[in-house]
């Protein structure tokens, strides 16, 4: 270019006519060309910068530009019953999220989403969409139809992520046992929480909870029996207009829970009411004055002390007055009663006198030994702590002898009853399968064999003898024995004679009890005006219905031998 310029000048020099003017002219032309070159250089530099920027952006990681962080979805093992039936499983659902930074018009998004999700919280969602963050959940766990409808809206800045959701095929059938998971599929109640506490939570947190590696968790529950139990307690609650009812079927020889239900309960697939106060699991998380069922333990204690035999007698002619309280009998006989009579007539006075034989210290020690005063240890997290008087006095021993003044859970009452029925071995109840060998290894002996034998006799007697309070629990062929309990509830600080908490604890078959069945019913009303509302009328039929319907599933053979024999005799 410079050469070019020189050439020009040399040519201009040759033209003498206009040498000065032409020279000046060429000088500006040369400067101009220089400056064009400078401009070109600047533009070249700018375009090179843009090219560099493009290359730089080309090597950026798209994820780093602010997409939502991928999250490990928590997988959970299936829960199956003792026969392998599915109780809880994971299903895949779509959850709706938004990337607020990519949302243009939050109002439009909300308006359109409302056509599919009418219950979306407008203000809250608006704030979420305006938050400018990279990721927010809008609605978790949509149905496939909702997902499809939202897809059809074609909104930018929102998306779906597949999540695991817990599904319970049985709905509310075993709700209190299985418990719940939260929206992140973490166990928050029942066996679900137990599974997490056993290390699953850590596994999930470390991202190692891979679905195929998770073995199903097998429970001791039998779904068939569970269904029957829940069905019966629901019906009873309805029939007797009670505020609650519950029942448990316990293996008397291993401590396995075969079925347990407490109503009102909830549907774990839609647990909107699971946290309502009256929806708790009354069987393990509710404590009650169990009433006369406790007399089983009082009697066993007296017999086990060796100071009393089945032939001992107690004076039940007069009420006992202690302090301001007077202890009377409900079915008062007004005479001296033998131990079996105290039991089947459910004599408060007789029971108080039985406790008196052992003494206050001995009484408390026995109840503690049989596990009624301590917080039960089992897999379920929802277990209440029993309450007892801070200092045991004479009056406490007397009232506790017939089941007042001390509150315990129905489940541990059943566990204690199992010890009385199986010959004296106490186990912690379990919701997981437990073999006889495992049971024997963890069992502790709490009463003598002989006492157990006497208790079985008394239970059977109470269901068969004339005047026995457990007659309504009888199931032909299955030799049921049991003890009723009708406790008066405290209303406004006083025991009410009309508001009751009833229970029935039973075992069958009585010659070698396999199962304990305990039912409770809270504030039952008479079925029809004039009928009774004591445990014999409502709690006992729950037990008999459960046994009648479930005994064959539980593997107990019916034996009509005694009854048929009796009939044969009568026909002769």
């Amino acid at each position, binding site marked *: 270019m410079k050469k070019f310029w020189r050439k020009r000048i040399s040519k201009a020099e040759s*033209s003498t006519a*206009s040498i000065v003017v032409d020279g000046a002219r060429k000088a500006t032309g040369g400067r101009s*060309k220089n400056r064009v*070159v400078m*401009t070109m250089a600047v*533009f070249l530099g700018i375009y090179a910068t*843009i090219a560099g920027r*493009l290359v730089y952006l080309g090597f950026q990681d798209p994820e780093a530009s602010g997409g939502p962080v991928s999250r490990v979805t928590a997988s959970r093992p299936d829960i199956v019953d003792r026969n392998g039936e599915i109780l809880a499983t994971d299903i895949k659902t779509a959850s709706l999220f938004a990337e607020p930074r990519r949302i243009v018009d939050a109002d439009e998004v909300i308006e359109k989403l409302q056509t599919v999700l009418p219950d979306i919280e407008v203000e809250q969602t608006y704030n979420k969409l305006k938050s400018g963050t990279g990721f927010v959940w809008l609605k978790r766990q949509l149905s496939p139809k909702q997902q499809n409808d939202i897809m059809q809206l074609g909104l930018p800045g929102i998306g779906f992520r597949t999540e695991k959701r817990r599904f319970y095929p049985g709905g509310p059938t075993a709700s209190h046992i299985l418990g719940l998971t939260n929206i992140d599929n973490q166990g928050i109640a029942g066996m679900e929480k137990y599974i997490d506490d056993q290390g699953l939570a850590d596994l999930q947190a470390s991202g190692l909870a891979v679905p195929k590696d998770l073995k199903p968790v097998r429970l001791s529950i039998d779904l068939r029996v569970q269904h029957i139990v829940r069905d019966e307690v629901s019906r009873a609650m309805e029939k007797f207009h009670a505020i609650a009812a519950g029942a448990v079927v316990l293996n008397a020889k291993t401590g396995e829970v075969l079925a347990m239900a407490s109503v009102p309960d909830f549907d774990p697939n839609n647990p909107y009411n699971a946290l309502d106060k009256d929806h708790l699991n009354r069987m393990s998380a509710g404590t009650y004055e169990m009433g006369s069922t406790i007399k089983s333990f009082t009697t066993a204690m007296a017999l086990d002390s060796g100071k009393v035999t089945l032939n001992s007698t107690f004076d039940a002619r007069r009420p006992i007055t202690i302090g301001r309280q007077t202890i009377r009998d409900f079915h008062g006989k007004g005479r001296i009663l033998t131990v079996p009579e105290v039991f089947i007539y459910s004599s408060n006075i007789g029971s108080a006198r039985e406790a008196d034989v052992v003494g206050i210290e001995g009484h408390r020690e026995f109840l503690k030994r049989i596990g009624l005063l301590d917080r039960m240890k089992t897999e379920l997290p929802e277990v209440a702590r029993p309450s007892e008087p801070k200092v045991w006095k004479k009056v406490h021993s007397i009232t506790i002898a017939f089941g007042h003044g001390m509150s315990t859970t129905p489940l541990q009452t059943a566990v204690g009853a199992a010890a009385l029925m199986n010959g004296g071995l106490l186990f912690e109840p379990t919701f997981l399968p437990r073999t006889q060998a495992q049971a024997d290894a963890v069992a502790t002996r709490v009463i003598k064999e002989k006492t157990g034998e006497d208790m079985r006799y008394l239970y059977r007697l109470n269901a068969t003898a004339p005047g026995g309070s457990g007659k309504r629990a009888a199931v032909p062929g299955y030799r049921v024995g049991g003890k009723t309990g009708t406790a008066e509830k405290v209303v406004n600080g006083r025991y009410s004679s009309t508001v009751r908490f009833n229970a029935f604890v039973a075992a069958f078959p009585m010659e070698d009890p396999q199962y304990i069945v305990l039912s409770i019913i809270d504030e039952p009303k008479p079925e029809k005006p004039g009928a009774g509302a004591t445990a014999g009328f409502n709690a006992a039929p729950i037990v008999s219905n459960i046994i009648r319907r479930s005994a064959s599933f539980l593997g107990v053979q019916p034996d009509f031998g005694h009854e048929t024999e009796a009939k044969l005799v009568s026909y002769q």
Partner: protein
Amino acid sequence: MASRLDKSPVAIWWRTIDRWFLAAFLSLMGLGIILSFAASPAVAERIGLGSFHFATRQIFFTLPALAVMLAVSFLEAREVRRMALIMLCISLVLMVAVLYIGVEVKGARRWVSFAGVSIQPSEFLKPAFVIVCAWLFAEHARQPDIPGNLFAMILLGVVVTLLVAQPDLGQTMLALGTWGVMFFMAGMPWLWIVVLGALGAGGAVAAYTIFPHVAGRIDRFVTGEGDTFQVDMGREAVINGGWFGVGPGEGTVKRIIPDSHADFVFAVAGEEFGIVLCFAIMFLFAFIVLRGLNTALKEQDDFTRYAVAGLVVVFGFQSVINMGVNLQLMPAKGMTLPFISYGGSSLIAIAISMGMVLALTRKRPEKRKQVGFSGLSQHAMPAE
């Protein structure tokens, strides 16, 4: 190919036209149509028009633009000058008018409506302004006693005043920058450069203090805080597209950025067709600008040199600013990407400019050197 013996205007045109330029302009027009299909349906749907409203209109405008470009490319340099003078007068009148009868859009009056057609006079002002300034500078260079530079300065003052009154700071910057470059090439003394540079810096500071939205944009660019939504989106779109793009129609940024069919079409291109296409577009612009400047460098005639350089410099500035904003290299500034962004006025005006470039760069017999005072020198110089 047309024979040398063929003396018809079209044949002469075909022989003399710069076919590289022509190919580059036609490529850009074609890309404009293709990218309008990528970017505009989302925008059209968002504002309730038919999906292909803008795409159809882009084609509808491209045809007259092509015709105008080719027609202008037939002109002689003198005719170009005359046309520019007429365009300048009409544009200036319209720009005064626009202040009174213009349609106010987003706080600025830039548009006038004629029989249902909205036009933006400032778009047409730019090429006319460049040509007239080139002529003034060239005249001053030819005859220093002609106050061409002074007139050019006065003209700049008028244009800038009208643009600031709209207000349209983008076009103001373009006008100032182009004028500055042309004056620079016309041999502005270094002292002037310093003075004008200082004035320009002062103007920038003034814009920063007077117009809050300018201050906001610059602050946001420097600090990265506040609402940098559109620019962030542009950059992310390019990153998301990667080298080869996410595929036509698969992009998301066009649904999010309000002006994706206009100011952010480059980012849309990047997301859907990849950085490879961005490079192609950039190379086309760089090619046009550098080839234009190179032609100016070799040009003997001062007017042609300044005019071609000025026209490609406006073109280059627009492309550079638009791409820079799209790639988050500079503060957000609404600037169309010539030929590619949607916009009728912009497209026609660019077509006129580039038609002028084609007209001025046509091969022609070297003019006799107008050395010294006209008519005095009669030397014939051989063609290079």
